[in-house]
C-alpha cells in the first residue's frame, strides 16, 4: 500500500510550505481502502493527518504547525455512479468541479452541478464540501448544504462511515451530511459525496450594468430583491470608483428574455447602464472572470446580512486598494483577495453582523486570528465533539 500511495511531495508540500506548515510525508490514496489504512496507521502510531484536495481553500480550518502525513486526495478521482433518472451522482472526493461538470455536460441532454467557487479547475468536491466553498450561483441553487444528499468517509480510527443517501428528503438520524460541511477535515475524512444534479437550462444569459455610486447600487439591489426576477447569481465589483454588476439568468427562453429586459429596465432609473448577452459559455466566462483572482493570493471570506453587502464591499475596497474584492449580491458573501493583517482587522469591524473566515492564509496570520465561534459553542459543543470523535487528534484541530 505504502509504495502505491506515496509520492515525492509535490504540489501539497509546496502549498503547505508557502503557508508556513511543515509537512513530513505525503500519501496519495487512489482507493478508499488505501485511505483507510493510512488513517488506521495514523491512529495506532499517533500521527497527525491533514487531508488536502486542490488546496484552494486550505485555511478554512486550523492549519497545524506540523503535519505528519498529508493525505493528497486528488488520487481518489472519478464519478462512481450517475443516476440520470433520479438526478443525483456519487462522486469521489478528489474529483474537480470542472471534471464533474465536463462529465455531466456530456450525459443525455446535458446536466450540471451548480457549485461555482473560485478555482473550479483545481477545487475538488471533497475540498469544497470540507471548506463550505460557494460561488454566485448559490443565490438560486443554494450552497453545498443544499446540493449534497449524502457522504461516505473514514473516521479517526480508520472505520468506514456513511450518512445521508440518494433521496432529497432524509431525516433518519442526525444529519451528519450537513454537520461535516465546513469541518475542514477535523472530524472525518470525506471520500465520496452524493450530489444533486440539474438539467442544463434551455437558455442562459448574462446582464452587465454599471452604477456610478453606492447609493444607487444599494437601491437597485433592493429593488432587484423585491422584484419577481430570479437571477442565478449576481456579482458586484468596484472598478475605478463605479460598481459593475453582473447578473446571470437561466431557464425557459421566454423567461430569460423577459428577465434580461426587466433587469435593464430596473437598472435605468438608478443610473445603471449596460447590456445583456445570451449564451451559457459567455455567462459562465463572465461570472468566472468576476470571482477568480490572479495567482494564489491570500484570501478571506466575509459574510454579512444581505442589505449590508454593498457598504461592506465598499469599505473593504477602501482597505484593500488594488486587491480584488467581489460581492455575491443576494447572498451577502464577499471574497477579498490579497488579504493582510490590516485588511483582516478592518473586515472584522465591517462585518459586525456577520462573519469573517480564512480561505487561504499564511499560518502567521491565522495564529493571531482569535476565536472563530462564540465561546459557548466552542467549549460546550465543538471541543467535546472533537474529543469524542477524534480522541487522539489524528485530524487537524477543530477551529
Amino acid at each position, binding site marked *: 500500500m505504502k509504495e502505491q500511495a506515496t509520492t515525492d511531495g509535490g504540489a501539497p508540500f509546496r502549498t503547505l510550505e508557502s503557508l508556513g506548515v511543515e509537512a513530513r510525508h505525503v500519501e496519495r490514496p487512489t482507493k478508499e481502502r488505501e485511505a483507510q489504512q493510512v488513517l488506521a496507521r495514523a491512529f495506532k502510531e499517533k500521527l497527525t493527518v491533514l487531508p488536502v484536495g486542490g488546496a484552494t481553500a486550505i485555511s478554512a480550518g486550523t492549519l497545524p504547525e506540523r503535519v505528519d502525513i498529508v493525505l493528497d486526495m486528488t488520487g481518489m478521482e472519478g464519478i462512481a455512479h450517475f443516476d440520470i433518472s433520479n438526478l443525483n451522482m456519487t462522486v469521489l472526493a478528489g474529483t474537480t468541479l470542472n471534471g464533474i461538470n465536463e462529465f455531466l455536460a456530456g450525459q443525455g441532454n446535458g446536466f450540471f452541478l451548480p457549485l461555482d467557487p473560485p478555482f473550479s479547475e483545481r477545487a475538488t468536491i471533497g475540498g469544497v464540501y470540507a471548506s463550505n466553498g460557494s460561488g454566485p450561483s448559490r443565490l438560486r441553487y443554494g*450552497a453545498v448544504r443544499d446540493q449534497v444528499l449524502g457522504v461516505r468517509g473514514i473516521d479517526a480510527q480508520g472505520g468506514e462511515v456513511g450518512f445521508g443517501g440518494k433521496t432529497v428528503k432524509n431525516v433518519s438520524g442526525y444529519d451528519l451530511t450537513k454537520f461535516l460541511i465546513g469541518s475542514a477535515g477535523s472530524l472525518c475524512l470525506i471520500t465520496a459525496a452524493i450530489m444533486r444534479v440539474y438539467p442544463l437550462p434551455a437558455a442562459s444569459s448574462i446582464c452587465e450594468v454599471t452604477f456610478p455610486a453606492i447609493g444607487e447600487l444599494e437601491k437597485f439591489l433592493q429593488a432587484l430583491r423585491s422584484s419577481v426576477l430570479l437571477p442565478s447569481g449576481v456579482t458586484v465589483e468596484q472598478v475605478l470608483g463605479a460598481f459593475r454588476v453582473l447578473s446571470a439568468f437561466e431557464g425557459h427562453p421566454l423567461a430569460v428574455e423577459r428577465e434580461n429586459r426587466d433587469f435593464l429596465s430596473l437598472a435605468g432609473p438608478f443610473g445603471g447602464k449596460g447590456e445583456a448577452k445570451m449564451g451559457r459559455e459567455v455567462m459562465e466566462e463572465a461570472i468566472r472572470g468576476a470571482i477568480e483572482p490572479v495567482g494564489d493570493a491570500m484570501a478571506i471570506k466575509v459574510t*454579512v446580512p444581505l442589505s449590508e453587502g454593498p457598504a461592506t464591499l465598499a469599505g473593504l475596497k477602501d482597505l484593500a486598494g488594488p486587491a480584488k474584492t467581489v460581492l455575491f449580491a443576494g447572498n451577502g458573501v464577499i471574497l477579498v483577495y490579497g488579504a493582510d493583517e490590516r485588511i483582516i482587522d478592518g473586515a472584522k469591524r465591517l462585518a459586525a453582523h456577520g462573519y469573517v473566515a480564512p480561505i487561504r492564509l499564511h499560518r502567521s496570520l491565522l495564529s493571531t486570528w482569535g476565536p472563530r465561534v462564540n465561546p459557548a459553542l466552542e467549549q460546550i459543543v465543538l471541543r467535546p465533539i472533537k474529543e469524542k470523535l477524534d480522541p487522539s487528534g489524528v485530524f487537524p484541530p477543530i477551529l
Partner: protein
Amino acid sequence: MEKEHVRDALQGIVGKKNVLWKDVDLTVYSYDAGLVKGKAGLVAFVDNSDQVAQIVSFLCKEGISYVARGSGTNLTGGTVPLDGGVVIEFSRMNRILEIDIENERVVVEPGIYNLTVQNALAEKGYYYAPDPASQKASSMGGNLGENAGGPHCLKYGVTSNHVLGAEVVLPNGEKTWIGGKALDAPGPDLMGLLVGSEGTLGIATKIVCRIMRSPERVLTMLCIYSSVEAAGQTVSDIVAEGIIPATLEIMDNLVIRAVEASVHAGYPLDAEAVLLIELDGLTDGMDEQMKRITEICEKDGVVSYRLAKDVNERNILWAGRRGAFGAVARLRPAYLVCDGTVPRTELPKALSEVKKISEKYRVPIGNVFHAGDGNLHPLILFDDRDADEVARVHKAGREILKVCADLGGTISGEHGIGTEKLREMSFVFKDGDIRMMRGIKQAVDPKGLCNPGKVIPREEARPR
C-alpha cells in the same frame, strides 16, 4: 424525581399557574400524534428564552430529563416523555419577532404555527418554503426539530435549507446563538446538525428563517388516473423532461374517498389515483411548460385533467391534499404513517410491495405521497384497541421501511425517528455510523437528559 421540590422550582421560574402537576393534566402530555405512550412528570409553560434556560439549567443540576414540545404532530413519538421527565411546553412562545424584508429573513419563536407565519408573510408578498401538510397545527420549533418537509420541498428543499440561525439553550442551560441572518457561520454546520435532531442536542428558542418573494404566477393542475403506477410514471417523465414543478403529489383511491367524505375537494371517487401538479415562477414560459406537461400526462394515459381557474379552486384542491391525514383518521380509530423515502424511479416497486404487505398483514393501507421526491406516506389504518391488529400493524410498518431501505431509500423523509423507528435505524446505518451519532449526543449532552431515548438507538450490551 421529588415532585414537590421540582414543581416549586419550576413555579418559581414560570409562575404558579404555568406548571401542570395533577395526573389528569399530565396524561394529556404523555403522548403525541405517534403511537407510543410515556409519562410526563411535570409540564411547564414557558414564555421566553430566559425561562427555558433557567429550567434546563435547574434540571441539568438535578439530573432530571426533559423534552421540548411544540404541537406534538411529529408522528414518531419524538415529543413523548419516556421516563417521567419534564415537558417544556412552547405554545405560548408564539410570536413573530421580526419580518426583515430588506434582508429576506423572518425571526420567530418556536411555538408559532407554520401557517401563522405563512399568512403574515403573504400579506407582504413573501413566503417561507417548507409547508408541512400539518402547517395549521405544527409549530416552527417542531418543524426545526423534525426537519419538516411538505409538498413544496420538491423544488425548494426542506426546513434545513431554510433555517439559517437559532438562539439555542444548550443541554447545560447556557443560552447561545448558532448562525443568524448572515450566511456561512465558520466551522462545521451546527445549524445543519441541530435541525432534525428532535430536541436531543438543545432547544431552539428563537429561529431565523429565509423568506422568499411570492412567485409571479402559480398554476395548479389536478390529473386523474386509472392506476397509481401511471400517475407515478408521469412524475418520472416530467422530471426527466427537465421540468422541476413546485409540487408533484399523489393520492390513491382509499385516500381520495376519505378526502371526499371529509373535505369535498372535488376528486372523482372512482379515480384510482390523483396527481396534483403545481408550477410556480415567472409568467413567461409557464404556459409552454404546462402544455408540455399535459402532453406527458396524455402519453401516460391520464383519464382527465383540469387546471385550477383561480385561487379559490386552487385552495380547494390543496385542502384535499392537506386534509388527507385527518380524513383517513375518520375511517378507523388510529393510523400509523410510514414515512419512508425511495429514489423517485423506485416508487412503482415500492407501492407494489406496500400493497402486498397490506394483504399479508390484513390491514388497509392508504397512500398519499410527495411523489416528486419519492417520499411515501403509507397510512396503515387500524383499531388500537385490538392488540392482535396493533401487532400486525407494527410488523407491516417495519416491513414497509425495510422495502424503502432496500430500494435505496431511507426510513424517514420528514417525520423523524423518534422512538418508533429506532430499531429500523439499522436498515440504513452501520454500527460505525450510529457510533458517531451517539458520540455527538454524548459530547453535547453528557448527562443524557435532553429528550432521552429518541433518534439514536441505545448501545446494546455486548456479550462477554
